């Protein structure tokens, strides 16, 4: 056996998978088409956002790399949704496209047990439905106990602009031509998906006076719980905001049929949440303008591709080059802009995620795992989250350990994977806060409390980090107890202070904890009565847990209900054809998904509560007999 684990692909999923595998002491090989493209950011120059930013925190709590690496590449950062509630706040950073891959490559190279090889994988070694390694484009074979496919958009990738279709990946890279056909032969269902990206223009040719400035936050933030800050909070690089106009829309409408999409040249299914600008103009024809952000790709000026490049967020299109020129020049400030890279749509092959287990191991081939866009998701964060889980679980599988399956009330990563393997996808999947039914539990602030125990137990969080975290937990408990013990009474000075804070006067004595429940009272306000010499994170945690206690309890109770169904396992050898009385739609879906628990079964669309009851009874009867 050449390696324990082979990771195919060096994108965000592949990097996390390879690092997790190697750090868990498996001899690991990462195979990529081009070492210089490892951890590349082929689309937007930012990391995080609602839900996604929380995924990055979760990756950090589990011992993954994305958070730390994004902190190193941070050139601007914001906390989003600060006024909308504790559960939906999330970080979003502009990340330097030069630094991010460079730092990640450094980390990979510095990691023990990890080798990197440049090549394309065109086939797998499969014996009796079990993986044995990979076959390279030159016919050479490399053997391993497990393989993780993180091929991104590279399976039969086609770049589309107008009627022009060019085989190849985002940077004109070579694509894998036969791997998806081989996967089909092995029994995978192959989907054709589409995504797109906007133009990049030369920042020296933009008139920024015609734009409005978008600054970062004045407070320091990091994705990683290690809280190491690499950027200067007072010197962040801004983004700029502009809007499309009537002229832009006219150009688009006039040339609509020349776009790949409306010209009928696209066969893949594009994401609903990421429409191209022509989609927006057609579908929302009543809107007079659409907003566009001008985002810097890198501050490293001598970077040949990204150095002077500005990304036009919101302007993704598949128009031919000459139309794109017209479109870009119709924008305010971009009248004379030089396009460095044209927008394009990209089509690629993916597998049907219903053919995956919760561990991300495929149901078709044992010890074969997949993560990222090959599973039908989009987004760097979604890819990295899956890559980490695939890396962890491939390692656990070959070491005969139970897989790590995060539940929907534990992590956005859990929601993401459960959605993939239970509901399947039709268009590229993006995480949204609205997909998480227990999102009040899945917050930015408590990702470590939710997941660090797992990270430590698995072996990706070292003892030092872990004891630091334990100390935080102890402090939270200690201060919470103190707040509950210390009481204030309606004495004159207290009443005066409360009046100053703009809150209603006390009628009788209450604990500080009770006082903190008042919406207008901040934890800092209590410093008059208690020692608050703790980390910011500790105070923040207590404040949220206190203020929203009732709602958090409610969410926890709902989650418990779900978990009780989650504990009821469905044996792998169940034959749904023998379960009489199931509705036929439910039967079909159950056969396709093969849920592992009743909880998962209950989330399949088309399987209703009556079917679950029937299934429950069947299981009791059948498996109690034995």
């Amino acid at each position, binding site marked *: 056996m050449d390696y324990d684990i082979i990771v195919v692909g060096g994108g965000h999923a592949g990097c996390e998978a390879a690092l997790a595998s190697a750090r868990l002491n498996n001899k690991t090989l990462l195979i990529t088409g081009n070492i210089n493209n490892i951890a590349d950011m082929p689309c937007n120059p930012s990391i995080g956002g609602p839900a996604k930013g929380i995924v990055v925190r979760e990756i950090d709590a589990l011992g993954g790399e994305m958070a730390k690496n994004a902190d190193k590449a941070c050139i601007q950062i914001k906390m989003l*949704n600060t006024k909308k*509630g504790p559960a939906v706040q999330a970080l979003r950073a502009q990340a330097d496209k030069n630094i991010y891959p460079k730092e990640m490559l450094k980390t990979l190279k510095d990691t023990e047990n990890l080798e990197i090889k440049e090549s394309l994988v065109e086939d797998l070694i499969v014996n009796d439905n079990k993986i044995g390694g990979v076959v390279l484009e030159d016919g050479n074979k490399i053997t391993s106990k497990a393989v993780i496919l993180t091929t991104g958009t590279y399976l039969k990738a086609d770049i589309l602009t107008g009627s022009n279709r060019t085989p190849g990946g985002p940077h004109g890279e070579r694509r894998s031509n036969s791997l998806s056909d081989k996967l089909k032969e092995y029994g995978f269902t192959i989907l054709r998906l589409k995504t797109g990206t906007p133009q990049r223009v030369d920042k020296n040719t933009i008139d920024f006076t015609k734009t409005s400035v978008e600054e970062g936050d004045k407070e320091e933030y990091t994705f990683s719980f290690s809280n190491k800050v690499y950027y200067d909070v007072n010197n962040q690089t801004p983004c700029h905001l502009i809007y499309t106009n009537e002229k832009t829309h006219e150009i688009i409408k006039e040339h609509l049929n020349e776009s790949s999409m409306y010209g009928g040249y696209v066969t893949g299914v594009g994401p609903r949440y990421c429409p191209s600008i022509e989609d927006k103009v057609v579908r929302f024809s009543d*809107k007079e303008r659409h*907003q566009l952000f001008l985002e810097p790709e890198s501050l490293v000026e001598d970077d040949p591709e990204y150095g002077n490049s500005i990304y036009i967020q919101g302007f993704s299109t598949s128009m031919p080059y000459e139309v794109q020129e017209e479109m870009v020049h119709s924008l305010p400030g971009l009248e004379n802009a030089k396009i460095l890279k044209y927008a394009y749509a990209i089509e690629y092959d993916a597998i049907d995620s219903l053919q995956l287990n919760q561990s991300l191991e495929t149901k078709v081939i044992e010890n074969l795992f997949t993560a990222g866009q090959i599973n039908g998701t989009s987004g760097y964060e979604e890819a990295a989250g899956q890559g980490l889980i695939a890396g962890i679980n491939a390692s656990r599988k070959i070491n005969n350990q139970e897989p790590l399956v995060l539940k929907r009330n534990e992590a956005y990563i859990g929601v993401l994977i459960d959605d993939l393997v239970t509901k399947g996808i039709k268009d590229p999947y993006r995480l949204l806060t*609205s997909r998480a039914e227990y*999102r009040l539990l899945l917050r930015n602030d408590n990702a470590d409390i939710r997941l660090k125990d797992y990270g430590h137990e698995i072996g990706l969080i070292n003892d030092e980090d872990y004891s630091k975290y334990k100390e935080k937990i102890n402090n939270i408990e200690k201060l919470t107890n103190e707040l509950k013990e210390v009481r204030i009474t309606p004495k004159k000075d207290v009443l005066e202070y409360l009046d100053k804070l703009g809150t209603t006067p006390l009628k009788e004595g209450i604990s500080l904890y009770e006082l903190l429940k008042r919406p207008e009272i901040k934890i800092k306000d209590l410093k008059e009565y208690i020692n608050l010499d703790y980390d910011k994170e500790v105070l923040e945690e207590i404040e949220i847990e206190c203020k929203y206690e009732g709602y958090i309890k*409610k969410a926890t109770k709902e989650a418990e209900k779900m978990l009780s169904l989650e504990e009821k396992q469905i044996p792998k050898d169940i034959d749904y054809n023998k379960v009489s009385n199931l509705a036929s739609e439910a039967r079909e879906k159950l056969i396709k998904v093969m849920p592992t628990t009743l909880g998962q079964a209950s989330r399949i669309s088309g399987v209703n509560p009556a079917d679950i009851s029937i299934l429950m*009874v069947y299981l009791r009867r059948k498996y109690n007999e034995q």
Partner: protein
Amino acid sequence: MNDTIVAISTALGVGAISIVRLSGKDAISIVNNCFNGKDLTKVKTHTINYGFIKDNDEVIDEVLVSIMRAPKTYTTEDIVEINCHGGIIATNRILETMLNNGARLAEPGEFTKRAFLNGRINLVESESVMDLIESKTNDARRLAISTIQGNITKLIREYRSTLKDLLSQIEVNIDYPEYYDIEVVTKDNIKNSIEVLKKDLDKLIKESNNVMPMKQGIKTVILGKPNVGKSSILNKLLNEDKAIVTNIAGTTRDIVEGEINLDGILMNIIDTAGIRSTNDVVESIGVEKSLSLIKDADLVIVVLNNNEKLSKDDKEILEKTKNKERIIVINKVDLDSKIDLPKDIENVVYTSTIKEEGINELKDKIKELFNIEKIKSKDYTYLSNTRQISLAKKALKEIKQAETALNKNMPVDIIEIDLNECFNTLGEIIGETYSEEIIDNLFKNFCVGK
């Protein structure tokens, strides 16, 4: 199976006694909360306890409560059975009281399901359990699809659609925070939507409660002096429809003792004790008691003797019932007419129970008065059963919680939790709970993307 379920275990409206059954860890405490009698949490297992079920301070029924503690019970959980009087109204109110106190309405076959899942029923028995659950769930499935009236579905869908738009607007603000062209939901927006929905739901619940008696039975009192033929009229109505009359004394409120199925519409005859025992309501229970009966009744049938002049009692009854839905039956038209009925009296029907005349006219009059054809043709929009009303009340409670959160200045994400619950509860009423709805709506209505 952590929650406590409740259901009416006996067929509605058939037996003399109905049983409301609860199973689950809170079964005993829930009943105890609304029980006037011994402390049920302290009584021995497998005992029967006498007392009253109350809804707040109002006594609903005199009952016998069987306490059976886990594990030696049908479901192996704590079980409480409330033996109450077999009328629909009392039984339903007891069920409703249990729901209000924290029990959940059992799904069809759920007691048996629990019994099975908890290993109470053995393998031989399980085949029949399967059949039972199958038939019941299939019924439930069919019911969910077909029996809910179109109007109420349409109405609830409208409420949901308003909420759905509000929710997707909130969601899009959260998931796409930097889309400046998308209108940000303000607390005023939410407040307005909440106000409207609260009012609508409140109205719907009230109206449904008003319609329920007609749907569930018209409370009817038959009054008259001795020997005018009250029982004969009752018997004519009963015999022809093969309804069952029960006779239970000593009860306290609205006890339905006889049920008449009048072309599919139920009439509940209230307190026929007088008629049956002494054949004289006024004499046996006194004018005072009969007045309180009149007050509660949806319909009063006053029976008078064609062969006699109006007595003082007759006149008093006519006076006291003049503002009620009322039918005056002039019986014994086979004899000479000596009655001196005032001219302005309406809804008069002439019968002869001996010659079996006029009974059909009486029935037609009842149907006419209660607009029964209209109800049957489903022109009304109302919730038609306890399950629906209980869910509507839950939705109303949730929308009020959202209002409270809003007034307490909670952030929008927190308010949304209550709104979401309300949205799902409304969906439950009409069998539509599909979690992707809001996401679909979001992408359909808002222009977001990279």
